[in-house]
């Protein structure tokens, strides 16, 4: 083996990725070549010297000084921190937010089409031009009658509530309405109506 090759193998040896055959050849060469042997020894001593440099430590107050330089926590961070500390209030707030937003959304989502919800469509007369739903005289509507984007004219009998959303409820002298009559025109009324419904569902014995 030539010394040039040996020098390369010495480095592979020092990196610990020399294969067995090459290692054996290197050792044989080193045995016979004092120059390469010294070279290897010097390299190993160099590594030992670098490794033996004393370990320096960061100053004692290093961490405090780093933390002092951090940017102030943003509002967002503060809010999320507060929420983490008050999980129940956070949950209640989220609930309220979702509920009102869904109510508001359900108000705006509806377009200007006349919408009628009832169990007995065949009993109703719908005048799409005037946007009026008529319960004719003698007709009997079981259950609630809810009309959206239009008015209701009741001449017959409704065995439930009559609700007109964005419209009015007209009752003729012949009208018989078992439940409540409500006309809802503003968004606040709409929300109030929904809340009342939720309340009624939750508290079945409420008057």
């Amino acid at each position, binding site marked *: 083996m030539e010394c040039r090759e040996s020098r390369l193998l010495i*480095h592979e040896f*020092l*990196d610990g990725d020399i294969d067995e055959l090459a290692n054996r050849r290197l050792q044989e060469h080193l045995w016979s070549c004092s120059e390469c042997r010294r*070279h290897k020894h*010097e*390299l190993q*001593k*160099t*590594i030992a*010297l*670098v*490794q*033996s*440099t*004393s*370990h*320096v*430590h*960061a*100053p004692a107050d*290093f*961490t405090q*000084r*780093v*933390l002092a*330089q*951090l*940017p102030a*926590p943003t509002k967002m*961070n503060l809010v*999320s*921190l507060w929420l983490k500390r008050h999980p129940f209030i956070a949950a209640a707030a989220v609930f309220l937010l979702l509920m009102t937003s869904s109510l508001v959304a359900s108000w705006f989502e509806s377009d200007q089409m006349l919408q009628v919800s009832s169990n007995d469509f065949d009993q109703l007369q719908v005048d799409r031009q005037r946007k009026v739903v008529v319960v004719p005289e003698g007709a009997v509507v079981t259950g609630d009658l809810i009309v959206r984007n239009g008015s209701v004219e009741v001449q017959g009998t409704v065995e439930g509530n009559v609700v007109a959303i964005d419209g009015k409820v007209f009752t003729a002298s012949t009208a018989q309405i078992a439940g409540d009559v409500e006309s809802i025109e503003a968004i606040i009324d709409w929300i109030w109506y929904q809340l009342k419904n939720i309340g009624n569902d939750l508290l079945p014995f409420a008057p």
Partner: protein
Amino acid sequence: MEFVEKRLTQRAKRGDREAFAELVEIYKDKIFQLAYRMTGNRQEAEDIAQETFLRVFANLHSYDESYKFSTWIYRIATNLCIDRSRKKRPDFSLDQEAEGTEGLDWYSRLSSNDKTPEQAVMTQELQDTVQGALSQLSPKYRSIMILRYIEDLSLQEISAVLQLPITTIKTRIHRGREALRNKLRFM
């Protein structure tokens, strides 16, 4: 250890400053040491180490958790060190002069425990020689030698830190060793 670090980085990512402080505690000596060996100057090393942690904090959101945290922070610190040495090459020699006086106080404090003054001075001289030999390497070789033999990283880790192929790392380590040998062989 790696599991703990992963937890800490996840918490720090979410803005938890206590977790970040723990990460600083774990890495401050390693990073300070790297910067000190790169610059040979305590004050500069501290500046670089501080800057490293501030950058870690500012960029936590972009830290990819599939890599080791140590790889990432070593990369930030090494880049900062190399940038600095590029900027201040003109007064490099001045730095080396200042180094001796600055280091003295530090080392004498370190080695004052159980050594006679004579031994302490010997050690000090040796330390200075090694530091001097390191300083004469160009930053790209110096950083690799420090990461390998002072920070004790494997070749694979160094390759990940510097984002260079492992063959390049090996070549540079070979040359770096030869260069250091030329400076230190007579010690």
